[in-house]
């Protein structure tokens, strides 16, 4: 009975905290703009299969004129095989966003587990985890991701792994320092005195406390994963599916610049820029709202 009561108290407190958070977040105009832009991008990517399919990226389906500039019929022009850049950008957003989200998720999960463990377990385990984190932190991440993707062979899954495995250490460090701060509080000692084990303390006390920061860092991580994915694709390490990065690679390979086909270079790039800026704005607003240190600094 008492467990239920404490549970509902905790939940109503969380609801209150969420209400406060939402009120603060709405104050950030940039953050709200980013959120709206993101919602639009995600919805467009999700509904794409209702209107178009894989065939828009197929070379043989290009029915238009090659390198035709933007017009009423083709708002974003066509590429080297007469495919519509508009439809390709739309279809490609699915790959770009999917890889961005999943790679960020993988990176955050590794970072969270390692970070909490390194902060919670003092002694050799924590020290070893920190050593490993620092080692991964100094590795040049783009180079390492290229090597991993090249060796594992290009598929959506390997690109996700390559990005996730090379970008988690920053999250791990952030979460570790937060974990240390949380565990220094008296209620952790109380919980230990009442017999709370490692699992109980980390999942019931530490995790809810670091969760808000995890959210902010996930948002920023998705932005950087999307950029990394497009960079990898541009450097020739890709999942062989149409994404914004592979489109830009094609524009480079087929000499869009010398053809004067500015739309083929500008449109996919603007898509990346817009989505990444939206994520960055959201992430910074979240950080400003959730990070007490930044809040104090104003």
């Amino acid at each position, binding site marked *: 009975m008492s467990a239920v009561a404490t549970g509902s108290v905790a939940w109503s407190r969380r609801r209150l905290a969420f209400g406060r958070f939402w009120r603060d977040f709405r104050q950030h105009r940039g953050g709200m703009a980013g959120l709206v832009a993101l919602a639009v991008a995600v919805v467009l990517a999700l509904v794409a299969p209702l209107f178009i399919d894989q065939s828009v990226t197929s070379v043989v389906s290009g029915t238009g004129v090659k390198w035709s500039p933007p017009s009423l019929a083709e708002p974003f022009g066509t590429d080297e095989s007469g495919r519509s850049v508009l439809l390709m950008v739309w279809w490609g957003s699915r790959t770009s966003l999917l890889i961005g989200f999943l790679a960020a998720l993988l990176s955050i999960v590794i970072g969270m587990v390692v970070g909490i463990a390194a902060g919670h377990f003092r002694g050799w385990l924590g020290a070893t985890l920190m050593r490993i984190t620092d080692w991964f932190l*100094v*590795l040049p991440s783009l180079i390492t991701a290229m090597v991993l993707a090249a060796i594992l062979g290009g598929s959506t899954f390997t690109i996700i792994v390559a990005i996730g495995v090379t970008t988690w250490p920053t999250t791990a460090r952030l979460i570790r320092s937060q974990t240390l701060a949380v565990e220094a509080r008296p209620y952790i000692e109380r919980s230990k005195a009442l017999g709370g084990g490692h699992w109980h303390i980390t999942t019931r006390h530490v995790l809810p406390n670091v969760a808000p920061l995890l959210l902010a860092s996930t948002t920023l991580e998705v932005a950087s994963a999307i950029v990394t994915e497009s960079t990898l694709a541009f*450097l020739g390490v890709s999942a062989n599916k149409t994404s914004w990065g592979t489109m830009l690679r094609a524009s480079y390979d087929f000499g869009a610049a010398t053809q004067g086909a500015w739309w083929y270079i500008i449109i996919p790039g603007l898509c990346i820029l817009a989505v990444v800026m939206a994520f960055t704005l959201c992430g910074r607003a979240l950080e400003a709202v959730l990070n007490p240190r930044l809040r104090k600094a104003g």
Partner: protein
Amino acid sequence: MTAPLEAAEPAAVQAAAGPGDERPTHRGTLQYALSKAGGALFSIAMVIIGTFFVFRLLPGDPVRNLAQGRNMTPTQLALERHRLGLDKPLIDQFADFVGKTLRFDLGTSYEYKRPVLDLIGERLGPTLLLAGVGLVIAVSLGLWQGTRAGWRHNSRFDRVSTGISLVLWSVPTFWLGLLLLMVFGVGIGPIPGIFPTRGIESVDAPDGFAYVLDVAAHMVLPCLTLVAVVYAQYLLVMRSSLLEEVSQDYVTVARAKGLRDDEVRRRHAVPNALLPTVTLVFMRIGFIVGGAVTVETIYSWPGLGQLFYEAIRVPDFTLMQGTFMLITVAVILMNTLADVVYRMLDPRVRSA
């Protein structure tokens, strides 16, 4: 590129707080340097071990990879395997690999049929030139603008320059490169292409001073791209670390003494704010390396980054492995240097 923004600020704050708060031991700078060097050696050893296993144990038969799908008889395969020492037990292969690496024998490139180390040596100069010049410009521009923006917090200059750097932050390096290539290299509309877009020198490169000018002209676009993506992080970090200093007591004291605004900034606030930023320049060297690979690829700059890119494209695994190890080891060494120099520069950390 977006990557290090999240990392930059906590790192700077952490650096400002000083490593002393985690290990309150009283060690001399020399001892500290030695322990850092030990850590670096350990990291390098991990890189060598990691490289060995990643390149051996992941899917794909190395011989078939080297053959790149060419048809080979089983006898040829076995011979090749024997020549490369792949028929030995894994532990012997590992010993061979470590021994050779320590003697700087990085193997022979399959694509170029030449020692990897020679290839790297040829490409090192152009990369150092490009990255060095780019870094100097980016650091000076970033620190200067960051100081101005942070000192006049919320001024028009602050808002404009922070806005620009946030946009540059989100721009993928390669896309910015493509845009600059299109506008200034090829020319668009009424703008003619002014700068060369490929390589480091013209085919009919002149001698003497004219040669220097020729190389400089080739360097404009790659350098501009590199600077544009890199300087934003210095600006943002310098700005935020100056913001932290502005509210400190000693700044108020300096003002109360009657120092001019300019003097307070130049002699009191900036030197303190500079420390975390300068460390960051070294700490994020890996990011610049990534940028260099991209920029060199776009402008066919004959440097290390382009060599690495070619190794990935072929794929030439020996070359890939050699360049990867070299780049990583260089980055680790730079980071260690940054740690030690930082401790020497900052009296707060030294006395801790």
